[in-house]
């Protein structure tokens, strides 16, 4: 089904006027529309999670602020910037593709992939910091009824935090996967400046992943900023990271 061979059909009405028939082949706008519709489903998925979060925030506001204040805002902020830049590289890659600069496009995609890995790396550091603070899935702090148990609001906050950043992380991983696939398609000549809908949609996907982060970030990291409980400072962040490699002691 080589789509290049496709020639649109013509339908003739009773007055003899001719109308081009849109076939499913070569329907760039259709492909784009389809992808947007797919992205709505992502928005609804995250929407439902944000709703869960808001629901519990209404019930445990103080705990949420408290828990948020203890997250590592500077790492989160750094990751925001990483994502912002990767959105730019992705966009420039698409621009280059559209203007026929395939080599440049590929470079940009690679740059995006590298940034994506950087994001995941920082996320990993963050999670291990939390682990070393005794706050992680399955650890006592997030289970009820023991001496390390956090209050309900915090258990819920951290539960949702690991869930949502985890699912977001899975999206980043998925993004890396489809970008590698895209590179393969470019190399084999299936994606070309004339025919780059795949590239276009993957760029959209990447922006969506970013878009979700734009809301994840304030909800988790910034809610507790500037309050009395706020303990996150740049210097303590640096200190914590430097400890990470050295020891695994809790607390």
């Amino acid at each position, binding site marked *: 089904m080589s789509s290049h061979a496709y020639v649109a059909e013509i339908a003739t009405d009773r007055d003899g006027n001719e109308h081009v028939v849109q076939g499913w082949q070569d329907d*760039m*706008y259709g492909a*784009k*529309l389809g992808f*947007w*519709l797919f992205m*709505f489903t992502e*928005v*609804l998925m995250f*929407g*439902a999670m944000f*709703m869960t979060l*808001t*629901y519990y925030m*209404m*019930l*445990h506001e*103080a*705990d949420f602020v408290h828990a948020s204040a203890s997250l590592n*805002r500077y790492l989160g*902020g750094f990751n*925001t*910037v990483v994502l*912002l*830049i990767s*959105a*730019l590289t992705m*966009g*420039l890659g698409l*621009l*280059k593709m*559209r*203007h026929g600069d395939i080599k440049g496009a590929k470079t940009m995609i690679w740059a995006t992939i590298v940034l994506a890995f950087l994001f995941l790396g920082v996320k990993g550091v963050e999670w291990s910091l939390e682990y070393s603070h005794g706050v992680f899935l399955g650890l006592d702090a997030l289970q009820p009824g023991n*001496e*390390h*148990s*956090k*209050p*309900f*609001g915090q258990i819920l906050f951290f539960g949702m935090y690991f869930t949502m950043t985890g699912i977001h992380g899975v999206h980043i991983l998925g993004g890396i996967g489809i970008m590698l696939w895209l590179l393969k398609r470019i190399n084999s000549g299936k994606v070309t400046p*004339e025919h780059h*809908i795949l590239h*276009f949609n993957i*760029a*959209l996907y990447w*922006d*969506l992943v*970013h*878009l979700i982060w*734009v*809301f994840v*970030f*304030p*909800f988790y990291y*910034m*809610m507790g*900023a*500037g*309050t009395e409980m*706020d303990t996150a400072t740049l210097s303590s962040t640096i200190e914590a990271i430097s400890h990470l490699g050295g020891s695994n002691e809790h607390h």
Partner: protein
Amino acid sequence: MSTTNLGSYKEAQSGYIKILVGLLVLTTVTFVQPHMFLTDMNLGIQLFIGVVKAYLILAYYMHLKGETQIIWFAGFSLFIVAVFFIIVIGFDVANFQYMDESHITQHMDAPHASHATH
């Protein structure tokens, strides 16, 4: 889509970079705000900044400007999400019954105290 006017590469590139700068500035504001101004409506402001950023990304990075049909669809989807929020949060949680007696709404500051027992 292949029919859209591409314009010059340079121009488009500088457009992208301008948006990036805008987004970076907004991110900075995010960090400064909690310590500087309107601190008592922190989350609201943060989310507002989020919305502005989202607008920039949608409109420019995701080329939504001028896509009337998709904008309508997107608006519809967001409306649905908003409805869920309004109903669940505004109608149900906001009127939570027997809140004080319920276990799940307890604010347990107690666990810190129970530290001592062990």
